[in-house]
């Protein structure tokens, strides 16, 4: 389809037992855009996102990263994952490493960066999210919002071409949601290519270039945020929006 897509999923299907979690979904993320995926729980949006870096292996369909089929067994998926950053609902910081070590471990080991370079990059990113003074703290010493900001910059340390966010604010206390979203908005404004699965409709309104609504493993509606929220076409999206807004 479009040659500008950094990641493109074509007809991706993923089953868990008898349930089709993702049912023939095709979608692409263009360079610099922020794609937000919304939908009720169990709609397959997280599973779809996890297919994009092969944390879930699709049963059928293709995922292209810059035109390369990363579902192929012939490629080394680890090389592509280095270019696809991911942020999780439960942060998944490494508890036995300091914040700084969390951030420098992968660049030093996988990109063979010198320690001084990796640390410099990490510190610059930490300052950007206001956490430079926590560089030597362990994850358990951080608040949820701080952990998620660290998780975001940890992924950024690998200089990814695209960032995937899997419900990044769902495990946060309400007063901490804002700080994580601010970092993400800042990223979006800076031109990072992003795919975000979230329940934060305000984030979708403000930061999304495009919104996808999924239900029962399928894309039901796809539109600009203004149109999608103001004029939902399908009854399912209408009832979903009525429940959460």
């Amino acid at each position, binding site marked *: 389809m479009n040659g500008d897509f950094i990641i493109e999923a074509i007809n991706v299907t993923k089953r868990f037992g008898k349930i089709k979690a993702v049912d023939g979904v095709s979608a692409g993320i263009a360079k610099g855009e922020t794609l937000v995926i919304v939908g009720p729980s169990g709609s397959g949006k997280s599973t779809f996102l996890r297919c994009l870096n092969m944390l879930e292996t699709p049963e059928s369909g293709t995922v292209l990263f810059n035109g390369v089929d990363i579902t192929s067994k012939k490629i080394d998926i680890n090389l592509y994952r280095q270019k696809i950053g991911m942020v999780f609902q439960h942060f998944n910081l490494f508890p036995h490493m300091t914040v700084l070590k969390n951030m420098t471990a992968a660049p030093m*080991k996988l990109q063979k960066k010198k320690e001084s370079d990796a640390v410099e990059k990490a510190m610059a990113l930490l300052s950007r999210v206001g956490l430079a003074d926590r560089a030597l703290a362990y994850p*358990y010493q951080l608040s949820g919002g701080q952990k998620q900001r660290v998780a975001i910059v940890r992924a950024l340390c690998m200089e990814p071409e695209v960032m995937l966010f899997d419900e990044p604010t769902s495990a946060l206390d309400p007063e901490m949601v804002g700080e994580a979203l601010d970092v993400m908005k800042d990223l979006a404004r800076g031109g990072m290519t992003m795919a975000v699965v979230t329940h934060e409709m305000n984030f979708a309104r403000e930061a999304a270039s495009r919104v996808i609504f999924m239900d029962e493993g399928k894309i039901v509606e796809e539109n600009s945020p203004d149109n999608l929220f103001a004029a939902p076409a399908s009854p399912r999206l209408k009832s979903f929006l009525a429940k959460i807004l």
Partner: protein
Amino acid sequence: MLNGFFETLTEQFILNFIDGGRWKFIANGLVVTLKVTLFAAALGIAIGFIVAFVRTTHDKTGGFKIMNVICKAYLTVIRGTPVVMQILIIYFVIFGSVNIDKTFVAIIAFGINSGSYVAEIARSGIMSVDNGQFEAGRSLGFNYVQMMWRIIAPQAFKNVLPALCNEFITLLKETSVCGYIALQDLAKGGDIIRSVTYSPFMPLISVALIYLALVTLFTFLTGKLERRLRDSERRFYN
């Protein structure tokens, strides 16, 4: 009356430990016991972690099919037969036709035996690490071995340290069956004295007390370690 008791005790002590330098049976035996225990523990940990790595890799990724079958067979056989039989078979059957150092045989036998228990301890440790840690490691681009070594193993090891210490204590006491291949360890040393002096009380109780002292020492150290771990446990709340 009390005076008589102490006199007997002193006589017994002299008979069993001083006469003919019999204390050397105990001292040399203790050295053998500690040697066998320490080297067998090291061997057991090496075997155990390799087996656990193979088994969990198979469970998580489906790889290592043949290796997994071999590991499972190893666990079944070693955990399903008494350690006395294992050491007898290794000494008299496997190394039956060669002249081999008995201490070496004991280290091999107890190492292989302990490895099977360490394997299951280590496996439970790896399984106890949150799946999100595996996913975070993979999403950064670490390959499976790098992820296991840098991210999972340190957390798993910390989780199972108390259980590993416990296995070490069990191993220390189990080595007392070394006498079956006539290796003169601590237990055998006490038994030899008994068979020479025909006075069982002093040598056997002494040997038992030495085991008790060793185990108490290790238990104390384990307890200290566990307390330190508990202090840093909060970090596992994500």
